[in-house]
């Protein structure tokens, strides 16, 4: 602080420095807030007051589209809010086991499916099961008996049964994010399935499946696919591509499936899936 007090003639720097700093800030502030911000792309020139607000980031021109809105279509009722997480986390697997007794006829003992059209549920993320059940309940997803079953289940039932299946082993592996690096997991890979799964197809807006479905990647609301039924995976991809299934949030899977050819879909399904009736060794169908 000694320096600050010394405004003697042998140290002109405090005056120079404070003066220069003040000048720079005043000029920059006046230009940035009072002048430049008045001009906007495709809009009228703003008053100085509005320009200052815009400069600060307080904008007034917020509002929905001015043209007539198309009728609202929502893919699902579920949103990944804290409340949803809490409800799923509150699921009681013991109670879920009782509810799940109704499921095993199709989805197999402990949720390990033996039939190609029914997905394996054992080890599936509880959030995924919960969301799909709610979509069946609300009609955002429809498939045969599942719509009726969904409507018969309460929210609590859904959370419980989701918790039960999520804890069953021998089905789908948990995605932990851990994975040793391995060769052949880039766009150079010749095998189309391996390439799609690990590198995607950027030209057709297809990201790598593994980034969300594993191995190695995970995304909220996304099922792990290793060990799922081949037919089921392929069928769902076709349904997403053709718009028969539309319950994916923000068109996530519809966009991707539209970029896949039928051959791609089959290759990916075979890569991930376990053909029906093949016994699983050690619980994990890892490649």
């Amino acid at each position, binding site marked *: *602080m*000694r*320096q*600050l007090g010394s405004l003697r003639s*042998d*140290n*002109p*720097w*405090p005056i120079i*420095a404070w003066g220069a*700093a003040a000048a*720079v*800030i005043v000029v*920059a*502030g006046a*230009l*940035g*807030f009072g002048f*430049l*911000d008045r001009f906007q792309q495709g809009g009228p020139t703003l008053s100085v007051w509005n320009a*200052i607000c*815009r*400069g*600060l*980031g*307080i904008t007034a021109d917020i509002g929905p589209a001015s043209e007539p809105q198309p009728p609202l279509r929502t893919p699902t009722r579920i949103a*990944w809010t*804290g409340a949803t*997480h809490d409800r*799923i*986390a509150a699921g009681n697997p013991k109670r879920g086991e009782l509810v799940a007794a109704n499921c095993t006829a199709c989805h197999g003992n402990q949720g390990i499916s033996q039939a190609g059209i029914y997905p394996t549920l054992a080890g599936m*993320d*509880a959030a995924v099961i*919960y969301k799909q059940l709610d979509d069946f309940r609300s009609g955002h997803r429809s498939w045969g008996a599942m719509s009726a079953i969904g409507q018969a289940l309460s929210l609590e039932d859904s959370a419980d049964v989701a*918790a039960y299946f*999520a804890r069953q082993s021998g089905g789908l592996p*948990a*995605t*932990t*994010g*851990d*994975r040793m*690096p*391995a*060769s052949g*997991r*880039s*766009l*150079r*890979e010749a095998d189309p399935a391996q390439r799609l799964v*690990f*590198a995607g*197809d*950027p*030209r057709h807006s297809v990201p*790598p499946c*593994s980034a969300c479905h594993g191995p*190695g990647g*995970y995304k*909220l609301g996304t099922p792990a696919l290793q060990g799922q039924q081949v037919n089921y995976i392929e069928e769902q991809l076709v349904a997403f591509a053709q718009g028969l299934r539309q319950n994916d949030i923000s068109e996530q899977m519809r966009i991707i499936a539209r970029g896949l050819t039928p051959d791609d879909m089959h290759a990916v399904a075979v890569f991930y899936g376990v053909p029906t009736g093949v016994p699983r060794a050690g619980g994990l169908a890892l490649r």
Partner: protein
Amino acid sequence: MKNSDRLLALYHFWVAFAVFLPAVVLGAWQMLMRSPLPAPLDDTNAYYASVTLHGTAMAYVVTTFFAMGLGYAVIETSLGRPVRGGVAAWIGFVVCLVGTVMAVVTVLSGRASVLYTFYPPLLASPWYYFGAFLLIGGSMIWVVLMIYNMSAWKRDNPGQPVPLVMFAITATAILWAWAASGVLIELLFVLIPQALGITTEIDAGLGRTLFTVTLHAIVYFWLMPAYIAFYTLVPQAAGGRLYSDTFGRLTFISFIVFSLPVGLHHIFGDPEIGAGFKFLQSFLTFFVVLPTLLTVFSLCASLEIAGRVRGGRGLLGWIWALPWQEPMVLAVALSLVMLGLGGFGGLINMSYAMNNMIHNTSWVTAHFHLIWGGAVLIMYFAIAYEMWPRITNKPLRSKALARWQLWLWFVGMLVVTIPWHVTGLMGMPRRVAAFDYSDPFVAPMGPWVIISVIGGFILLVSAILLITILVSSQLGERKLSEPLRYALAVNPPRTVPASLNGFALWNCIVLVLMVLAYGYPLGQFLFLKSSVPAYDVTRQAVSTEGK
């Protein structure tokens, strides 16, 4: 030099260079990965982990350890007395080293592929954040020691000018303290609470804005050792004297003042900051160019003195008369060329709306590789060649090899970055693991990318050569070396105005400028409702926690 201080400097330098070499290997592999050429272990996930590690190593580890080592060497040689607080210095060293190991191991395990810039709401394993916090926080011990040593010397030598090199390295430490405040606050109050599950939501805008407090000034923290060499080592290596001591002091002061309230120019493309503050900081950024422009002239003038004394005639004849066999003189010339090219890229980036042309393209990668990886790092090499005989008492093995190393680094860096500038203008995004070169849009970039890969491997050869020279010199015969010498100005000042001999005034100005430039942009997050759920890259979300 006292033996303990010698070891202190040597250990810091060795951590820096030991981390540097593998980081270059990663860089070369990454270039291969994103090129059309075949790559070993081509795994896109590994690429993102590698980018995280390369960035963390180069941006935090190499630079921090190098600056700390240089600081301790400078204290002893410029103040002419041993480092005070040696125990604290070793504690700082260990803390930083533990942080480094923690961060590196976590990234290698694949649990922290969030890049060294963190990118909330992506969330890494808490161990990565702890590691980064210990590394950066540990270096604050060094900051305190630098300030303490300088003020203790000033107290003991009233009225004397602080040696320019000590003034400069203390300026570096003070700048680092200011710069690190952003990332430390982000780690402590945004990332670590979220990673530990203490908070449920994260404000990505707040995290990014805090990081920009660090993001520009950290670059000048990396840069300042190079400028220290420009002002205090180069003139004597060339055989002349420093043109102006005052210019040097003003340069380092300007870096402190103007490299801090300008960080928002890194997020010109972000929606959380109003246009007014973007322009304000763009305007201030123009002033951070000034010290570099002043240095270019001052450095040329110092070299001109040397060249003319050595018999150079005519307007530019002094250039040829310089002792080019000296690694330091060669390095400074190569550094200036890269500084010019990289600086040009920087002028484009900082020019308000023009940033949109190249924001987040490979142009930006090219820019900071030229500045830091080129202009700055080549001076780190030259400083190491200068320091090694002094701190090991073993002469440098071969100056010819050192010259080769510097030339290879220079050529490699240009071959790497010139194509990146071109592809950046073509619209190639950065931080991308793989490109589909069969896409007609990407295809024309292929040849450029292949050229840059060649440069990457030239850099790798140069890095290996550097380590070879340092190791073989250190294993050589012990021989008493000349002491490290700092350039005397043509007019050495007898006294220096108080403001050019300390930092109180400048810290006050920085504080005021930071409040004006960052007060509202950070304060707005108190009332903006913009917190979002985090996306943990390492484990599943809450739904299967109970598994």
